């Protein structure tokens, strides 16, 4: 054969070999990068990497556990059917979840119980506690909600539920965020095929209607209660709900938003971070302790919380002088009360009640006692705390700007945030 022929054949062979190589050997786009460690927020079994999505990465992690590259201890949520081991059944389940097949998934709630929940959620009922409410806007799923229990609705913050109630799409099922009327719920199950009840975990709910959960389950309604009080649990509940409602992107977005705020805080405060001493109260008659949600909040905001009692609160009655001890003489006092977007502001009696207790406190005497609203999202409260603890480091109105950003993003209505409605100085 002549030279040209040989070269042609060689090129063809190489080309054929390359094509074969491409098609036969598993390609790079299936090779997903597995994170080193699971995030641990979206505690849905099957969501191996713990973020807000069930996707190929989770499949890959499960497979890598099967073939021994990784272990179940590193990624406990890869075990989609909670059987104790990861096998092909789990991989299939995860794939079904990606395809949004009608099924039950297992969720680890904030009380460390494993609950079986309908997925994807089509007709939820919600018990809107005061901490769950601000999160609802982020999740933006009110178009599928069929029933809600609430005490009073803030027409601005809770606009989605509010509009739903007004238009009749959403039925009121209870008069506060802790209990649901059985009869009305049964109607919703019957008529509107309600499948899951989402609620904020609260001690009172447990006391009143622990038994109801069993009844609801008998009726085929899954009940998922998640704690929403401190920043960690807040994020976790959001992530879980996000997965179940297919709003992972919203949640991820919000998490980025929060992360940026926290990074900003660290940057602006620099090495002053953690130097200002602070005490926080969320109830008129007590100060929050290390077990309360406000402790980590105040620390994230850059404060040094002087509370040294382990419960969530320690009572402060009028005439108590223990707060005047040197070790509790904080630079700043944050006193919480409810002040809403569309409903009432701080009341005189709230302010008077605090005045009666703290007027001789170090912080009050130095004009550094502030009353703040407990009805805003956690990230906003942290921003306010940071700005008011370090007023000379932050720009005036920085926190308010963040609040306005949040409102612009997640409230459907036009609303201008007035700072004095959400944080105010209490002077002597």
């Amino acid at each position, binding site marked *: 054969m002549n030279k040209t022929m040989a070269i042609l054949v060689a090129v063809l062979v190489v080309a054929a070999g390359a094509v074969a190589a491409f098609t036969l050997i598993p390609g790079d786009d299936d090779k997903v990068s597995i994170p080193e460690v699971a995030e641990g927020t979206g505690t849905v079994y099957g969501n191996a990497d713990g973020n807000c999505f069930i996707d190929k990465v989770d499949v890959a992690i499960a497979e890598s556990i099967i073939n021994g590259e990784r272990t179940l201890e590193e990624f406990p949520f890869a075990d989609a059917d909670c059987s104790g081991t990861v096998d092909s059944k789990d991989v299939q389940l995860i794939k079904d979840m990606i395809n949004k097949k009608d099924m039950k998934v297992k969720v680890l709630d904030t009380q460390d119980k494993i609950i079986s929940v309908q997925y994807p959620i089509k007709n939820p009922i919600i018990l809107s506690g005061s901490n769950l409410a601000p999160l609802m806007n982020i999740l933006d799923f009110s178009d599928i909600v069929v029933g809600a229990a609430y005490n009073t609705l803030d027409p601005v913050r809770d606009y989605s539920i509010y509009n739903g109630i007004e238009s009749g799409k959403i039925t009121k099922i209870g008069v506060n965020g802790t209990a649901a009327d059985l009869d009305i719920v049964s109607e919703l199950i019957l008529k509107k095929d309600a499948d899951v009840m989402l609620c904020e975990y609260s001690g*009172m709910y447990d006391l009143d209607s622990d038994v109801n959960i069993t009844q609801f389950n008998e009726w085929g309604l899954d009940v998922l209660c998640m704690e929403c009080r401190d920043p960690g649990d807040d994020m976790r509940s959001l992530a879980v709900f996000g997965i179940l409602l297919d709003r992972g992107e919203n949640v991820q977005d919000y998490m980025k938003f929060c992360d940026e705020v926290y990074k900003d805080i660290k940057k602006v405060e620099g090495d002053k971070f953690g130097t200002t001493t602070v005490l926080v109260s969320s*109830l*008129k*008659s007590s100060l929050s302790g290390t077990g309360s949600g406000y402790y980590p909040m105040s620390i994230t905001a850059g404060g040094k919380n002087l509370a040294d009692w382990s419960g969530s609160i*320690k*009572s402060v*009655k*009028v*005439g*108590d*002088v*223990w707060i*005047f*001890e*040197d070790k509790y*003489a904080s630079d700043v006092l944050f006193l919480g009360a409810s002040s809403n977007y569309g409903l009432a502001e701080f*009341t*005189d*009696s709230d302010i*008077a*009640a605090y*005045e*009666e207790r703290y007027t*001789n406190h170090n912080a009050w005497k130095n004009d550094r006692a502030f009353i703040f609203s407990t009805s805003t999202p956690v990230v906003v409260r942290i921003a306010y705390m940071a700005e008011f603890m370090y007023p000379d480091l932050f720009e005036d109105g920085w926190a308010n700007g963040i609040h306005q950003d949040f409102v612009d993003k997640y409230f459907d209505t036009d609303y201008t945030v007035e700072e004095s409605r959400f944080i105010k100085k209490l002077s002597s």
Partner: protein
Amino acid sequence: MDAVSVSDMECEYYASIKKKKLAILAIAILSIIATVCSLFVSQLSTMTISDVMDVLGYHMTGTGDINPVYDMVVWDYNVPRALLGLVVGSSLAVGGAVMQSILRNPLATPYTTGVSAGASMGASLLIYLDFAILWTGGYVSSIAINAIVFAMIPTVAILIVSHQKHITPTTMILAGIAIMYIFSAATSLLMLLADPENVQEAYEWGIGSLGRASWDNIWFVTAVVIPCMVALLLFSKQVTIMNAGNRSAQSMGVRVKMIRNLSLVIIAVMTAVTVGITGGIGFIGLVAPHIARIFVGSDQKYLLPCSAALGSLILIVADAASRIIVPEGMPVGVITAVIGGPIFVLLLIKASKKVWF
């Protein structure tokens, strides 16, 4: 025959009177000592006795170098608290002593005509519903005004009814209890519809505490209580005679009905004002007069001062105990109930020996 001469009897009589006066004096002195001691009790673990002495010295002589926090705690908190304890303790005990005599029942207390229940209702109205009869800008004083007004209502009601028809003291007691039930039901209704936070506040208020004492409200309470106690002391002779029974008293020229009603009003006013600030501190009005009777007998002329001294002593000691036992301070009403209760039961069980029932 051993004739007891008149002078012997006179000697005995004067001796017993002297004993009574000594008893009153002794208890009163104890009370003052307890009051002074209570100034040194505080929730601040770092404040020592010498610190307190420094502060007191400063205020008495105007010189000396003191820590402003200690000054504030001792002078703005402890001293008014002690003074209030004195005033309230004696007011409750005196009220109890007189109530027991005019209602002729050893279990009567100043709260028997419904004063405490009315006051709780008034406080609840403010705490739960923000309904203030007169908003003074201060939480404690506004609650106090509500409480005082509502505390007077049951007594006024009973007195009006007693004017219409003849009512025995027993009926008055029972009517007072019935009114207490009614107010209690109304307060429960309010509680059911309220926030847990407010519930805790109202509940604590109702238990009774001296913590709300301050220089602002002390003068008011004292200004009302002292004249009332003096007035009651003025009636003491008549009330002592009333102990013998209405008919006997009337035949001796005592205007029973007028004295009874007037005493009720005075006691109501006095008690309402104290309850308005402290809440319902129980058992002092019940137990102190009985213990006082052990020392000085039933003659109101001695019983009232002795009860006053004893009542203030008990209250001061209870308050100091409540601050020592629980450093964060427990409401004193809890201590008086927990300790007063068994004492009350003991007194009842021993009562079979007394003639008084």
